[in-house]
């Protein structure tokens, strides 16, 4: 066989391989344990293959009308209904879990794109083909154009030719007054016109993904075909629509004159639906014409923009970056993300002079201003650091309070406070931690240390900066003597008053001067 003969044989080969890989991708190769338990062995996997294909057909059907969305719960409903069709031993598996498995793991391949080597007859060489079975937008799924093609098995017959053929068949059936067949054809017509629309959108998506792979001929061909088709078909469809109008009128007359039987009713229904489908088709056709124009514009723009994009040559992620990273001997690893990925950072000017400084509340502490360069990114890390600081402060306060209680078994709040260092009080009064903690404890009226002692061995999660007595006690076990079993708080008429900070930043805190007694 000569080289030419081989080339001729393989003309359009990449299309066949695409179908090959679509089928391949619909196959269920493996599944999670819970499904494997029900669908056992190769037989079970084959049953799952059937389900996989059914789901594809369901998604196609569901997205037939423009405003229908197909979500995971729709698929689950379908699987629930289809459950009775399965052999008995495979029935009863929870439909929502099956839906998630089939849609996300099988049809979406868990997010991974399907890449396959394929011989491209136009290029005369092997290249990497890419395939996706589903499009997803905000939880609604649609089939990609490739899968539609596959379902229509339209390798030789272009889908637009199908369209004319369908319209022709419908006309013939109408002439012979075979309305049930005409109805079937009209449904096909709607499906096909929608398929063509999707074809166009898909073309745009492919342009955006990689304009280099779309040849000018692809584009020209597409636009030309649609333009001609739409003009020709429009006339025919309008005539057909007029015909159905007449038929509807005839049926309605016949019914009025007494020929009301099941057959007539059925035919009337059919014709009315045919009419509706025709109207839909005509509308879709109009919008297809508009869309075609939009596609032209978009394509031009994408093409123009693509010339501004830099050279597509790129680093090999594995060889040039990952492998060397794994061999780094010193602490450069600590800067890897920063060095390699800084172009991804959002540019933000450093705010070196913060106008908020003028308007800060008076109790803002020096501790916070010592951060170098204010980090304006509202990250979880600020909240977490805040929480950690507060937790640490509560522990310190707890330690001071309970050790004071251990040594002075009976005292007033003002005595306790008077015994603390100014620097400590200043730190603890930030965010009102100290007054809050004292008052929270006071509200307990009595703290049963003996009972709590038993519970302080439990593992506790760190609080998020709020007051948690049990957590504090478990952190300061060492200062609580064994002979101190109860702390009792009693109110008094006196006021405890203390001042922290200097000059303009000074604050005075007032609280009830309650009494504390530590009992054995």
């Amino acid at each position: 066989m000569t080289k030419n003969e081989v080339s001729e044989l393989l003309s359009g080969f990449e299309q066949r391989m695409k179908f090959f890989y679509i089928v391949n991708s619909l196959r269920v190769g493996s599944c999670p344990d819970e499904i494997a338990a029900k669908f056992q062995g190769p037989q079970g996997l084959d049953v799952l293959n059937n389900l996989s294909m059914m789901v594809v057909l369901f998604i196609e059907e569901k997205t037939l009308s423009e405003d229908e969305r197909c979500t995971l719960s729709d698929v689950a409903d379908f699987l629930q209904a289809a459950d009775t069709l399965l052999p008995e031993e495979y029935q009863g598996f929870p439909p929502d879990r099956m839906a998630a498995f089939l849609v996300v793991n099988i049809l979406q391949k868990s997010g991974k794109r399907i890449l396959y080597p394929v011989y491209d007859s136009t290029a005369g060489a092997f290249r990497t083909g890419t395939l996706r079975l589903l499009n997803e937008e905000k939880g609604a799924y649609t089939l990609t154009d490739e899968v539609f093609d596959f379902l229509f098995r339209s390798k030789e017959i272009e889908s637009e030719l199908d369209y004319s053929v369908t319209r022709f068949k419908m006309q013939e059936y109408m002439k012979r007054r075979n309305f049930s067949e005409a109805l079937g054809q009209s449904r096909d017509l709607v499906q096909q016109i929608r398929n063509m629309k999707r074809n166009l959108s898909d073309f745009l998506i492919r342009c955006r993904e990689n304009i280099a792979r779309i040849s000018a001929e692809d584009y020209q061909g597409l636009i030309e075909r649609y333009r001609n088709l739409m003009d020709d078909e429009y006339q025919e469809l309008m005539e057909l629509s007029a015909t159905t109008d007449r038929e509807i009128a005839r049926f309605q007359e016949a019914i009025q004159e007494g020929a009301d039987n099941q057959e007539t009713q059925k035919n009337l229904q059919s014709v009315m639906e045919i009419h509706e489908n025709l109207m839909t088709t005509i509308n879709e056709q109009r919008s297809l014409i508009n869309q075609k124009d939009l596609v032209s514009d978009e394509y031009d723009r994408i093409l123009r923009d693509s010339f501004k994009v830099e050279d597509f040559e790129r680093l090999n992620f594995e060889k040039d970056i990952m492998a060397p990273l794994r061999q780094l001997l010193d602490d450069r690893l600590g800067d890897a993300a920063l060095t390699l990925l800084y172009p991804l950072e959002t540019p933000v000017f450093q705010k070196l002079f913060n106008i908020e400084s003028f308007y800060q509340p008076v109790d803002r502490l020096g501790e916070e201003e010592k951060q170098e360069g204010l980090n304006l990114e509202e990250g979880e890390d600020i909240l977490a650091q805040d929480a950690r600081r507060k937790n640490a402060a509560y522990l310190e306060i707890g330690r001071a309070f309970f050790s004071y209680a251990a040594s002075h078994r009976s005292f007033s709040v003002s005595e306790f406070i008077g015994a603390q260092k100014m620097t400590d009080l200043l730190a603890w009064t930030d965010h009102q931690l100290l007054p809050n903690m004292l008052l929270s404890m006071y509200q307990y009226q009595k703290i049963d240390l003996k009972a709590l002692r038993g519970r302080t061995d439990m593992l506790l999660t760190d609080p998020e900066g709020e007051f948690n007595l049990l957590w504090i006690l478990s952190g300061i076990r060492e200062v609580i003597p064994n002979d101190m079993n109860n702390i009792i708080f009693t109110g008094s008429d006196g006021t405890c008053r203390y001042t922290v900070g200097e000059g303009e930043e000074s604050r005075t805190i007032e609280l009830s001067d309650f009494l504390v007694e530590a009992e054995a």
Partner: protein
Amino acid sequence: MNRDTLTVFHELMKKGWIGRKENPLAWTAVQEDDVYSELVEMGKELDFDIYPAGNRLYLVPTMANDLFLKKNMDFRADIGSTDSKSEDLYLMNYLAVYILYSFFKGEGNTLQVQDFTLKDDVIRDFTDHCRTVTTEGPENVTGDEYSENMKKLAENWLGKLEGAQDSKKLNERYGILNKLLIKFRADDLFTEDGQQIRPTEKLQDLMPYVLRKERAVEVNRWLEGSSDAEDH
């Protein structure tokens, strides 16, 4: 200087990019050649590049840039330590690059190899990866040499508990992943939808830039810098 150039610059500084739909005025302005070239000139002086990508135009700081705050990818604050030798720091850095690698490792002429991934999958794949690193012997067939740092980093990961899916603790695997995702979200690189992690339009637009051949010099110089240091 053309006034429009400054308008465009102003808009660019708000999010780091302008879009055809989102900033129509600025977009139209920057289609003018003189505005575009002035912007490029500004970039040379202020250390940024202008990078067009489909429907958006990005302002990207260059390596020399000391004008813009670049803090998000510095994870020292997250691990609560300025110790450069911290193992958790190495881990976060390597994992960050690894996640990007898993999406954009490229195959043939396609750069992006997956549309989304699940958090569970990331944890599982990375755990397998770390096991490969720490296993000596015939299973390790890649022939890669791993530095001590790499092995310690892998052991660090393997030694951590998995943790709850919403964990934020550094001693748990999900905790580290979640912290990273917060950083990525802050820079508009990934979105999370329940368990699914998806790259944003910004990340998809910029990865070709991040991996362009011209960066090879810069990247190699940084990578090789370490082997100079260790030669003594």
